């Protein structure tokens, strides 16, 4: 697919195939087009050319259906300042599940992921950056989406929060068979959570496949060398 912002071509031609139940990582420098790609997949933006299918649904013509099965964690997470974390999760649970039994299960799950203790009853304006991310991650996972799209979920967080988030991603991938699409520029992180990656630069996919295959193809020992070789080699 191709995406232009006015005259600027942010995505020059992206072609990806992500399998069900895998944790797929999109890696690339700032401005490569990761966020733009994610916004198109999550139906927020329209592709200028080409199309995206999520579990068979077209993101343009069947965006309603796509939205029902995905969850998106934006790069810059925002929160409603005067609402408590609990109220927020409660709102999301009731929007998705109404009053059914699934509602209380989702809320429980959300509180578990957020793991904020009693601070969950605090207004979100008092949350630290890490806490805001946790609440948003809770929102994304509590509905057990088929596809969770996380845009740089650990960027700007301290080690402990980042570690926790990676742990949750792995755990929920196994437990609920959630497919993850994660972007990052932390290569160690990518290595720990995902088996398949795509390297994107200047709106183009430079290389894509399983990490092991790529290491072999480029004759390098680790993912860092791989990344440098691909980025520099272009």
């Amino acid at each position, binding site marked *: 697919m191709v995406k232009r912002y006015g005259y600027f071509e942010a995505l020059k031609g992206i072609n990806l195939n992500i399998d069900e139940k895998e944790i797929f990582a999109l890696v690339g420098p700032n401005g490569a087009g990761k966020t733009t790609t994610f*916004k198109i997949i999550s139906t927020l*933006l329209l592709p200028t050319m080409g199309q995206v299918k999520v579990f068979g649904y077209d993101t343009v013509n069947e965006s*309603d259906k796509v939205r029902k099965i995905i969850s998106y964690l*934006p790069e810059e997470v*925002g929160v*409603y*300042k005067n609402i408590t974390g609990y109220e927020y999760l409660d709102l999301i649970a009731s*929007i998705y599940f109404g009053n059914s039994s699934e509602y209380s299960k989702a809320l429980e799950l959300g509180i578990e992921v957020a793991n904020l203790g009693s601070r969950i009853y605090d207004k979100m304006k008092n949350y630290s950056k890490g806490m805001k991310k946790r609440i948003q991650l809770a929102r994304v996972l509590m509905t057990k989406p088929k596809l969770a799209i996380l845009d740089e979920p650990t960027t700007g967080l301290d080690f402990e929060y980042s570690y926790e988030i990676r742990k949750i991603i792995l755990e929920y991938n196994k437990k609920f068979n959630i497919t993850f699409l994660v972007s990052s520029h932390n290569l160690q992180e990518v290595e720990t959570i995902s088996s398949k990656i795509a390297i994107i630069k200047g709106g183009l996919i430079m290389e894509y496949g399983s990490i092991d295959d790529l290491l072999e193809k480029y004759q390098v020992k680790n993912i860092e060398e791989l990344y440098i070789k691909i980025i520099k080699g272009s």
Partner: protein
Amino acid sequence: MRKLIKKEILDLIRDPRIILPFIFAPIIFLVLGGIASQSVQSTVSEIVEPSLIKVNIIYEEKIPQDFINYLQNVSEKEKVIIYFTQKEKDISNILKETDYDVYILIPKGFFEKIERKETGEIYTFSKTTEFRLGSITGIKEIRVVRIIENYIKEKYINSTEILNFISRPLNYYSLVYLPSKNLLVSSQSLSSLFFGIFIASIIILSLGAIIMQISSTSTAIENEYKTLEILLLLPISRFKIFLAKLIGTFIVSMIGLSLFLIGFVFYLYLLFFSVTQPTQNLPFISIAIDPFSLALLIASFVISLLFMASLGVIIGALSNDVRLANTLIGPVFILLFFPAFYIIILTPSSPIKDILMSIPFLQTLIFSKEILLTNFKITHLIYLINSLLIILVLIYIIGRIFSLETLLNLQNKISRRFKKRI
């Protein structure tokens, strides 16, 4: 220091958001001045170049022939056409059924008083269905009163009678008849009424601005805090998301304004009672404000709030931060302000009025002005339905464009225009 001041000035001058209000202010005054002067002009031209007026003199008992002769002699010079009516019915019936510029009621015993060289008393009436600055000055009445005064003065000019009588041979009471309400009020209280309504209109205007502010801020904050993306991805139609935002703002505004609304209704009644105090033996068939009119006014008010709230949501959605939203409110509000001021000061004539009456908010201003002078009819209900339709169409259109793709495009266009220098 001087360098710093220069930097400060440059920085400010290059920010269009700072400059815009300064450019707008003189334009506003130019336009407002034009509107106001038009109203003053019609009054002034009436003084400089008196128009031909039709006068109905209503008498309770036979009037002397020399009085009739006098009026007929001067009628050409004074540019008046005089008609006489014997008062048999209620005065308000005469006012209702006929159409003259000025009515003069000469009560029983008037000419006897004049004979006794006591100051006589007469009543002047004019009919009005509209409300404007010039309509309550009573210039035409004064012209007729002067003619009658001159009659009395000429009659006694050669006799050496009491000075007081010569200098003031006549007292007159100026009244205005409101046909739709079948009500007489004094000219003085009508002008206070005018200012009462003027102030109420200003308050309604500022309330509109406040609501626009609330709703645009709450939407712009979604952009600023980056919560809009999440909102737009919820498994709810975007139209409903927009509607929820609108209704939310609307409810908050309504809670805040319910007190105002109660106060406003009270205010209208108080204004009304203050002008309907009975004056001597004159008939007052007061119906005050009828429930139908009041219901329409309140409905129109609620529709206006909804209108301002949706304008605010649009502005907020198009601004990527709260500051920009606040800046955009200015020009949008001014677009509404011009016709609003026009409505407050003048009464628009029919084709323009039909349009203005159908636009929410402007309609409320006209309604609140008219409710004191007329009882609302079925046409007012039609205007109300029109404005409701406009709102629904507006909401529908916004609901359709409420997607990130369109919003982003528009936001970029707007912020590029406004943020060139920041």
